[in-house]
């Protein structure tokens, strides 16, 4: 191996320029204690909300509009819903949270906070501050199971809606991964509604590993669905399953029509979003297939 490559490997392995990390199994054992972490409550004060809305409307929204062609459907589902709710979506890109916050109607945007992985978004001060300010972000500890969503519980009790991505991490290949049960447990515990969101085309626009959308104003569609509510005696596993189906149905609706999607869902024939059982490259190949533009071709196309 060339010296330069070795240095590169070393830099990657030892996380040069980033916070050094100790392998989990080598971390010294400490009694579990309440880790308050980076304070985020300031971002949910009146001033914080005003600042965030200014950023979202003044910077983020124009930026999003400039970089891709955005289409939003299903906001009417939210008209008669009383908050708080848990917005959930599959997680395909770093764009997801921005897209959701930018497209939410004002009354929801003001009182919605985004759950973000503690180990990723709350590691260095500037990322913590950015996440808290722009997304009203609060940390979710992915390694702590039920205890990792303490903050989410507190916010919902305070009347804040939250945005979560139950897969826990962005898709590596464009297909939906298994939902973890934090959101369903929370909904069951607090009896709040769960609003499904499908984001079509975000993976193609900016997949994991990219920091800026690709050229050509890729089409991204945000489709909000009907809220689903926990049923009497329902388990968190079955609720998680219903949540996955709700997202899949929205994708189906985007691909076909609202009516067809409902009919297929009734017959349990909604196409799965889990992707083919195939080698990684084929899954990525399928997952990254460009999203076709809809409607009549533009004059210059």
């Amino acid at each position, binding site marked *: 191996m060339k010296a330069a490559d*070795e240095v590169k*490997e*070393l830099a990657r392995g*030892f*996380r040069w320029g980033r916070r*050094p*990390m*100790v392998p989990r199994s*080598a971390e010294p054992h400490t009694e579990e204690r309440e880790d308050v972490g980076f304070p985020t409550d300031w971002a949910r004060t009146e001033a914080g909300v005003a600042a965030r809305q200014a950023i979202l409307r003044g910077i983020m929204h124009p930026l999003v509009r400039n970089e891709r062609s955005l289409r939003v459907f299903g906001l009417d589902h939210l008209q008669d819903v009383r908050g708080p709710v848990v917005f959930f979506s599959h997680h395909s890109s770093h764009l997801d949270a921005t897209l959701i916050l930018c497209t939410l109607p004002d009354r929801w945007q003001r009182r919605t906070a985004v759950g973000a992985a503690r180990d990723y978004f709350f590691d260095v001060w500037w990322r913590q501050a950015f996440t808290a300010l722009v997304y009203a972000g609060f940390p979710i500890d992915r390694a702590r199971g039920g205890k990792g969503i303490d903050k989410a519980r507190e916010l919902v009790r305070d009347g804040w809606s939250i945005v979560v991505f139950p897969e826990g991490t962005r898709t590596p290949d464009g297909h939906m991964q298994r939902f973890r049960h934090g959101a369903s447990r929370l909904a069951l515990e607090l009896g709040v509604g769960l609003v499904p969101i499908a984001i079509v085309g975000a993976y193609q626009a900016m997949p994991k590993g990219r920091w800026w959308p690709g050229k050509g104003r890729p089409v991204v569609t945000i489709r909000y669905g009907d809220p689903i509510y926990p049923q009497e005696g329902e388990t968190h596993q079955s609720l998680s399953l219903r949540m996955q189906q709700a997202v899949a149905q929205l994708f189906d609706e985007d691909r076909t029509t609202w009516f067809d999607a409902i009919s297929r869902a009734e017959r349990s024939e909604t196409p799965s979003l889990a992707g083919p059982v195939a080698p990684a490259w084929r899954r990525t190949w399928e997952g990254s297939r460009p999203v076709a533009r809809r409607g009549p071709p533009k004059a210059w196309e």
Partner: protein
Amino acid sequence: MPRPGFVLEVDERTPPLIVHEGEGYRMQKFPLGTRVVYPPDALPGLRDLNAHIRQALLNPVGDSKPLPELLFAGMRLTIAVDDISIPLPPMVTPDIRQRILEHVIELAARAGVDDLEIVVATALHRRMTAAEIRRMVGERVYRSFWPTHLTNFDAEDKDGIAHIGQTEEGEDVEIMKRAAESDLIVYVNINLVAMDGGHKSVAVGLASYKSLRHHHNVHTMLHSKSYMDPRPGHSAINDSTIRMGRLLASNGLKIFQIETTLNSETFPAQLGFLNKREWEWSTKDQALMMAAKKANEVAPPRVRREFFRRIEASYKVTGVNAGEVEAVHERTLENLHRQQVVEVDGQSDIVVMGIPYVGPYNVNSILNPILVHCLGLGYLFNMYRNKPLVREGGVAIMYHPVPWEFHTIHHPSYIDFFEEVLADTTEPKEIEDRYEERYATDPWYVHLYRTSNAYHGVHPFYMWYWGAHGRDHCGDVIFVGGEPKSVARLGYRRADSLRDALEMAKDSVGPSPSITYFHAPPIMIADVR
């Protein structure tokens, strides 16, 4: 309190880990989920070593009088010391043997002892050179005794060997005549690993081939599981040496055993990163590692070898015990285990080991392919208690370039063993039956052993037997980076990278094997539950 050893599970946060491969090392990314066994941190050394030595000599353990009471004018005193095979690498001077010798000789001089011989207990190892002995015993001892009263043991001196008797298992016990006829033998030991010391010191270190063959054979090695676990019933070789030692005691031999243990500071401060866990490396450590690695890679082989030859371990002494052999050894093992034992939960399908540049038989020499086999499947594989790190039928993956290279002065019989015996068969039992006797009694090898600095003619056989248990236990042995010809001669397979080796191992252990990387040196013992 130093941290105990522990088992790391490789996750995405784990940096590449260092793996020794002969006169060099590499940084290796291991698959997620690999277990890595790390030795405990180095124990602190004894503060006032001279005081501890005095204390040990004056307050012996077991059924023994203090040393001054055992010394008297007109007596015959023989002091035996361990040879250059321990510690590894050689420790910074003054060597602990020098410090103990000076205390013992001082007491002997005060008691009016005139007939005093110091012998290096080489058994069938090579004779140490004058320079090596001087470094080991120090200038004062060397000047007073070399070369007339400070000598290497000669196991082929027919007139210098005494037959003591046979154990209840029919094992011949023969040791150095001078020692057998002495009023007192003082043995100065360094206990680097659990198989050292105890009755093995005299009954093996000062024994002849006729005596050694009773335990240095294939049957014994296959029944030593492991020979690093000296509890009765676990190690046939240890049981045999205990029988021999007890026979010596019952025949009136008086042995005053002095045993020492060292901590695990295997590498000097300049290479301090080798003593640390990788994620604790500072930027300086990383830069030093990279610089040393690159310099090592571009250096001509002679320079590289010289660099490694000059490495001196900064070992600190963690214990000195003296007195009756068994009582002393019990304390020694306790001390040793305090430093070396790591608990590991269960076996795995694959064990990965990096073979370092030095083993017991190539100090100031070359680690030839047979010694690579011995160090890997003999020593490292056997560093366990209860059961091996790898399951029966599992795969051992070892890192070493295995060059087809021999030291013609130190290892002449190894060359013929490699060219003649291994070309014919690699089966230990067959080798023992068909070739051992001839090599052991070959007059040319005997001559070189006695007059030059050559290992005995039979020594390569022992090295081969040493790995017999590991060879028998593993379904496959793969050398990463090994020279194709020499690895094939050893009867093993080779791969260019860990990825290739794991791919090859699929034949034996299936597509998703459990992997354990034994992160040595420093030396440790895996207590596999």
